[in-house]
């Protein structure tokens, strides 16, 4: 527990690493089970980013190996155990000079551009590595190589927490073929496999659905190999970096942008720093905001910046933010992903871009039916290609599904149904710090609703068409059965022989 602020002057500033280490629960490292899960997840997502960034179809190879021998003093294996975790990808690899900084230092982006990415708090895997080092005191091994080079660089390193600096312990080269590329990170960490097993497996299963163009192999500590082989060979188009939209920033960001701009007038600052502001828009806006277009940006006072910010939010003639920064999965990928569930039918849809608080977003949806699906409604939620595993009950998609009138589509809640919802955005409207579910925001709800309804409409046609054929055959045979019974019963009651040849002329099967 830390001491009171006003009464204790003998405190000093910590490095980001040190602060994080002390407050690691914030990022999910609050117990061995959850830490193991978060570590795997962070590294796998980094690897997927690396592959997609390089335009390579991802091959991700994860190995989790228990280091425990039974405790020598007590004879009992005591949880938490120590694991070796290794995550290998075929991304572009890392330039030798960047390795330590990229892997071993807590960094965050400062460029004033936006682009859809998987990242959550910008901590990437670094915190996982830090956690591993703290709990095991073992160094971290990185093996990485670029295409065209004929060696992998292998580095063994430690993190100096107090100074937030990496320290290289050992460095060497390993020969490779020119075409090979990618990075393998191997390190040790404390974990609790028994308690995290289910969620880790669920994470891989759902990830395999949203990146069906990836092959993912996971070797568990129980020595099982869980394999998800690639089922489609096209990568979604990469997102482009875009400048911020004037509705998507706040004063603090505006101040920072002004502090680094080299432009000499407010007008040129606006056109060069923002999307959707050309020369004429800048002029119109500055008139609206009553700001001198030729003023030097650096001369703007705090008050003036605050006024400009207010004017941004009130000016409603900027075009909607660009969706170029988004990288939706595309229908073919969603379709392939849902086929992993081996259903009978799948329908998918991709909505046109919408806007929420100055940031663009796109909803993709899919509905699957029958086959190997379990009875009842199964929901799979993704945000920027990350599966959302918790708090499903509070998610906007759950609410939309709860309000769907399945009956109108000839379906029932106990049918074998799977719903998939993918939101991609430069700012996903998560509801809580935990980032496990999407807020019930009007704009988003509308899109999810329309997307799922579109899928259901087409799905229901398919299901109905098949049912109709099955039904007709069955109906004909039942009808004949009833009339056979009617004729027999009437025959007995009337003491006559009743023939049905006139009723079913071709009916030699009766």
């Amino acid at each position: 527990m830390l001491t009171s602020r006003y009464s204790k002057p003998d405190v000093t500033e910590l490095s980001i690493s040190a602060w994080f280490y002390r407050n690691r629960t914030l990022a999910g490292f609050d117990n061995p089970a959850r830490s193991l899960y978060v570590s795997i997840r962070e590294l796998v997502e980094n690897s997927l980013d690396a592959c997609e960034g390089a335009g390579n179809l991802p091959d991700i190879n994860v190995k989790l190996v228990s280091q425990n021998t039974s405790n020598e003093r007590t004879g009992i294996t005591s949880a938490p155990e120590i694991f070796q975790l290794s995550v290998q990808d075929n991304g572009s690899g890392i330039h030798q000079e960047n390795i330590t900084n990229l892997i071993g230092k807590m960094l965050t982006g400062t460029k004033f551009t936006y682009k859809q990415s998987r990242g959550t708090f910008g901590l990437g895997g670094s915190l996982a590595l830090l956690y591993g080092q703290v709990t095991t005191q073992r160094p971290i091994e990185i093996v990485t190589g670029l295409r065209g080079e004929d060696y992998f660089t292998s580095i063994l390193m430690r993190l100096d927490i107090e100074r937030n600096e990496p320290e290289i312990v050992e460095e060497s080269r390993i020969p490779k073929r020119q075409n090979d590329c990618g990075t393998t990170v191997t390190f040790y960490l404390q974990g609790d496999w028994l308690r995290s097993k289910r969620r880790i497996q669920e994470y891989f299963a759902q990830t395999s659905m949203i990146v069906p163009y990836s092959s993912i192999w996971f070797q568990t500590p129980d020595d099982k190999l869980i394999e998800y082989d690639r089922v489609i060979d096209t990568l979604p188009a990469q997102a482009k970096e875009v400048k911020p939209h004037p509705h998507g920033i706040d004063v603090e960001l505006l101040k920072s942008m002004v502090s680094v701009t080299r432009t000499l007038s407010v007008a040129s600052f606006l056109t060069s720093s923002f999307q959707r502001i050309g020369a004429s828009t800048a002029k119109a806006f500055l008139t609206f905001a009553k700001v001198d277009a030729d003023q030097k940006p650096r001369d703007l006072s705090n008050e003036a910046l605050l006024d400009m910010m207010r004017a941004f939010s009130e000016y409603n003639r900027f075009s909607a933010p660009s969706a170029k920064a988004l990288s939706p999965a595309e229908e073919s990928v969603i379709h392939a992903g849902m086929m992993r569930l081996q259903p009978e039918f799948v329908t998918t849809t991709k909505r046109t871009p919408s806007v929420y608080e100055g940031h663009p977003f796109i909803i993709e949806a899919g509905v699957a039916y029958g086959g190997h699906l379990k009875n009842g409604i199964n929901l799979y939620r993704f945000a920027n290609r990350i599966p959302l595993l918790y708090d499903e009950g509070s998610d906007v998609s759950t609410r939309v599904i709860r309000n769907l009138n399945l009956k109108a589509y000839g379906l029932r809640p106990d049918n074998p149904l799977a719903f998939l919802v993918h939101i991609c955005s430069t700012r996903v409207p998560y509801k809580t710090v935990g980032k496990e579910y999407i807020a019930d925001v009007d704009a988003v709800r509308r899109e999810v609703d329309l997307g799922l309804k579109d899928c259901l409409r087409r799905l229901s046609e398919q299901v109905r068409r098949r049912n109709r054929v099955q039904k007709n055959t069955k109906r004909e045979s039942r009808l004949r059965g009833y009339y056979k019974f009617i004729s027999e019963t009437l025959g007995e009651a009337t003491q006559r022989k009743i023939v049905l040849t006139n009723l079913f002329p071709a009916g030699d099967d009766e």
Partner: protein
Amino acid sequence: MAIDSSVHSTPDVLDLINQVLFKLADTVEEGEFPEIGYYNSSRKNISYSSDQGYRPIDDTPSYIDGRKVESAKTIAGLVYGLSRFKEHLEQGMSMSLRDFYYMNKVRHVQEVLRISNQNETNRIINLSERILRIAGQSIPREEFGVVSSPKGTFFGDLTLSDQSGKKLNCTNAGEYGWFISSRPFEVKIHDINIDAAVFVEKEAMARNLIELGLPEELRIGIGSLFGQPGRNMRAWIRRLADQEVPIFVLVDLSPWSLRIFSTIKSNSIELSNIQGLATPEAHLAGMTSTDFWNKRGMLHEIEHSLELMTKSDIKCAQQNRNIPAIGQDEILNKENEALLKKKRKGELEAFKSFGLPLVELKAKYKSYLTSKAAIHDVKII
């Protein structure tokens, strides 16, 4: 006094069943899918008037179209049912609704009809009542041998013969009198020596009236409904009214009891196609709201015995407003509204909370009944 007989003779009913069966046989042999029309008991097909109760007006027919699978199943069930009714009638036997359900479990029937629920077979019987009609009137299922568990007794100087074929007087059939036949339509009434009949909702009160000798002293018959009256009891009351016996009904002061009385008086929407179940001449003999809540009411003194209506009582009274035979009946509507206003209810047992010695209680019963009869210009004693 006129002596009546059953509404339709068994041979007539048998004949009708045969006609239907032969017609169906001809139809399918000719290569036509049968189509059967009937009138259901929707509000369109029913009229209500306070002097006739519910009556069928046969406005909008429904059809069973034999080309449709579900309808073909219904026709199969109907044909089977008719063939069973025919056999039972020929043998003078009856069956219960549950019996008929089990007849559908005969193996070769079950294989085709796959009936899993008695509702389905009950529906076939209801349909048979609507399809078997003589002179535009449905034949009650009792007349083709399907009877419900009977309920109710009748005590009084009246001589009759029921299915047992033996002549009996209803004062000589035990302490409760005669256990009412399952097929009152077919009971023969030989002799009537009562000036009125009082039907009492609860058995205990009826028993007390008999024990106190009121049937003899007042020359009345006492019927015990044992709660909601069965079809047999309602038909029996109709039979008595046909013989011009004035009918009085003595029930609790509650929304449920208003339903009991209204069913006796006007029949019900569901069974409006069955003649002979309504007795529009029947009078409500109490307990009424004015008995308790008028200062001069005969039960005003025991107003404290009333209990609060429960939620379901209140809901019942609210629904009563939409039942034509209550909502559109001047007296019953007034009673129902009084209940809804006071939100309290009374029971026949309340007579016991006068705390009177039995001699005085008997006098109280007598004066109560004679006053109630006098209101309707019926003199008893």
